[in-house]
């Protein structure tokens, strides 16, 4: 089957016909592979779309409330129903009703396409996010890699928006965004690679699984370098979301509205939807990479749910994990909002200096440090290989075969791989 639609949960069940006890009374016949895939995709998309809208909605509401608390304003706490949550709904309805217009000077095609590019990429990133153990739409070997790649597509939409508006404010906003993002992707990538290095996999589900048990198994507590790396990662994600203090692309005081100056109505709201969704996404990413993912961090609880043979208990455990992930990510989102309303905005040159002169070297140093730590600390496995790298990786691969086919082929020829691992010391330079 094709990797593009590989899932671990629903599609497997669908393909072989659902025989879960819960669904017994439904008596659904097997629907064939193609049908199962399509059905699985639809289910996933529906679930994800729901989840995509929710944090955005909650985020906008939270932003309002938090900023009001921080700035000592009373309005947002009073208006719009209890705790003001209706205000967001009202705003949404208002925006939907507005007339869809675009400036004369705009490049109309790109102007219209840009918000969709943003929102599609932001949404697509959720495909790779495991919400609990195995609850992931696409469980890919290159999950983290693809997630970062697709996140970077969001930038493209913003640049297009800025360019096509035909306004100098928008153009400046777009250019700033381009410069900022191209730069910040470097430390983002490097700091994201550090947990990958420790876990030995880019599969986000795998990375999350490796942090089970007590909370000191979380990668943030793995070594001093990962501890620092988390904060660098968090800082960089702030910038990649155009959150204050790095929100130069939409700096109101200088650029009116930056790249979305000329947008209004639904298109404008789509930008915001995407921004809050990706706020949540990067927070969840940080949680999975560093903060133990969906695990509570208290080993007995997690083990109770995992070890149980009953699928219902397992399922309950997954639900608990989902909740834990939500809570952890929400705290990070809250932190982002807090920072936005606390810190003043930087200048564009300061933003670039922060990235290129500080964050890049720091993240490189942390990467080196984490590498060295993994090599030196006994019992830890770096990059899925034992210290010595090189062909010794073969040995590691034999011990933990990546696929069944590899394992099947490898096992009968133990002598051969022993001979090769002898040579490995030569190749790896360990001697």
């Amino acid at each position, binding site marked *: 089957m094709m990797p593009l639609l590989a899932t671990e949960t629903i599609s497997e069940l669908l393909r072989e016909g659902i025989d879960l006890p819960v669904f017994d009374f439904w008596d659904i016949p097997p629907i064939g592979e193609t049908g199962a895939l399509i059905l699985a995709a639809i289910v996933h998309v529906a679930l994800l779309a729901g989840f995509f809208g929710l944090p955005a909605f909650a985020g906008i509401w939270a932003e309002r409330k938090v900023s009001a608390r921080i700035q000592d304003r009373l309005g947002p706490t009073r208006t719009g129903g209890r705790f003001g949550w209706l205000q967001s709904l009202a705003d949404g309805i208002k925006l939907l009703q507005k007339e869809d217009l675009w400036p004369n000077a705009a490049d109309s095609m790109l102007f219209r396409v840009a918000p969709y590019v943003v929102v599609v990429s932001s949404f697509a990133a959720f495909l790779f996010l495991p919400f609990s153990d195995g609850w992931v739409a696409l469980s890919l070997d290159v999950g983290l*890699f693809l997630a970062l790649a697709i996140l970077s*597509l969001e930038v493209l939409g913003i640049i*297009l928006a800025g360019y096509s508006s035909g306004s100098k404010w928008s153009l400046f906003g777009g250019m700033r965004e381009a410069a900022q993002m191209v730069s910040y992707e470097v430390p983002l990538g490097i700091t994201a690679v550090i947990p990958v290095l420790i876990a030995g996999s880019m599969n986000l589900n795998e990375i999350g699984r490796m942090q089970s048990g007590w909370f000191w198994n979380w990668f943030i507590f793995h070594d001093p370098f990962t501890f620092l790396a988390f904060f660098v990662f968090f800082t960089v994600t702030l910038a990649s979301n155009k959150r204050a203090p790095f929100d130069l692309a939409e700096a109101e005081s200088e650029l009116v509205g930056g790249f979305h100056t000329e947008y209004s109505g639904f298109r404008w709201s789509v930008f915001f939807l995407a921004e809050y969704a990706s706020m949540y996404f990067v927070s969840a990413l940080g949680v999975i990479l560093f903060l133990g993912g969906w695990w509570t961090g208290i080993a007995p609880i997690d083990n109770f749910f995992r070890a149980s043979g009953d699928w219902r208990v397992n399922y309950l455990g997954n639900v608990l994990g989902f909740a834990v992930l939500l809570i952890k990510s929400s705290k990070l989102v809250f932190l982002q909002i807090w920072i936005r309303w606390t810190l003043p905005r930087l200048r564009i040159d300061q933003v670039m200096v922060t990235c290129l002169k500080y964050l890049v070297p720091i993240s490189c140093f942390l990467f080196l440090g984490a590498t060295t730590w993994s090599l030196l600390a006994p019992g830890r496995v770096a990059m899925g290989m034992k210290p010595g790298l090189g062909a010794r990786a*073969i040995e590691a691969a034999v011990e933990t075969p990546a696929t069944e086919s590899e394992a099947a082929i490898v096992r009968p020829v133990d002598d051969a791989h022993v001979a090769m691992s002898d040579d490995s010391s030569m190749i790896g330079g360990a001697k």
Partner: protein
Amino acid sequence: MELLLFTVFAAAACGGAIAVVLSQNVVRMAFYLVISLGSTAGLFFMLNADFVGATQLLIYVGGTVVLLIFGVMLTASGPFLTIKSSPGDMVQAILVGALFLGMVVVTVLQVDWDGNAAKLESRYGVSSLERPGYNQRGEGHTTRSIGAALLGARFDKDLGKNREQPSTGYLLPFEIVSVHLLVVLIGAAYLARAKRRVNVPSEF
């Protein structure tokens, strides 16, 4: 299903490419380029090359094209810059391109792929498509293999064979590319830094 996906991606890739050719606005060209390259990434996924596809997305779409647009903005002397090419050139080029395409397609169609596979099989004994250690089920878990190959170990070639000398993989090319990238980084920074010419020579 596969055919459907292939059709979608191939159409998007080719259509994007043709749109790049026909479009006159640079930024639009970039947008179409993104579509074309992204669809190519989809084709890569279909070809079980998940890592290559992801790289294509990250580096090409996320990096190179953004860089290109950035360049457009740095060099734009007016809004919505278009430098139109003459229709004559267009026709000429499309003629040559069509010839070229025709030639390639004809050549490809003439190749007897099954015959070639049979030849390879007769020469090497086993089917060249069924290599031990390499993923025949085609689930696209190539990341580990590629990573190991870049570090100098070839699972797909060395596993299961009693070979005296393990292959060296791509360690050296990898290092060379690394150094090359560094050189490019410095070179680009040097080339692009702001230089103010005192007097631009009128001739030459």
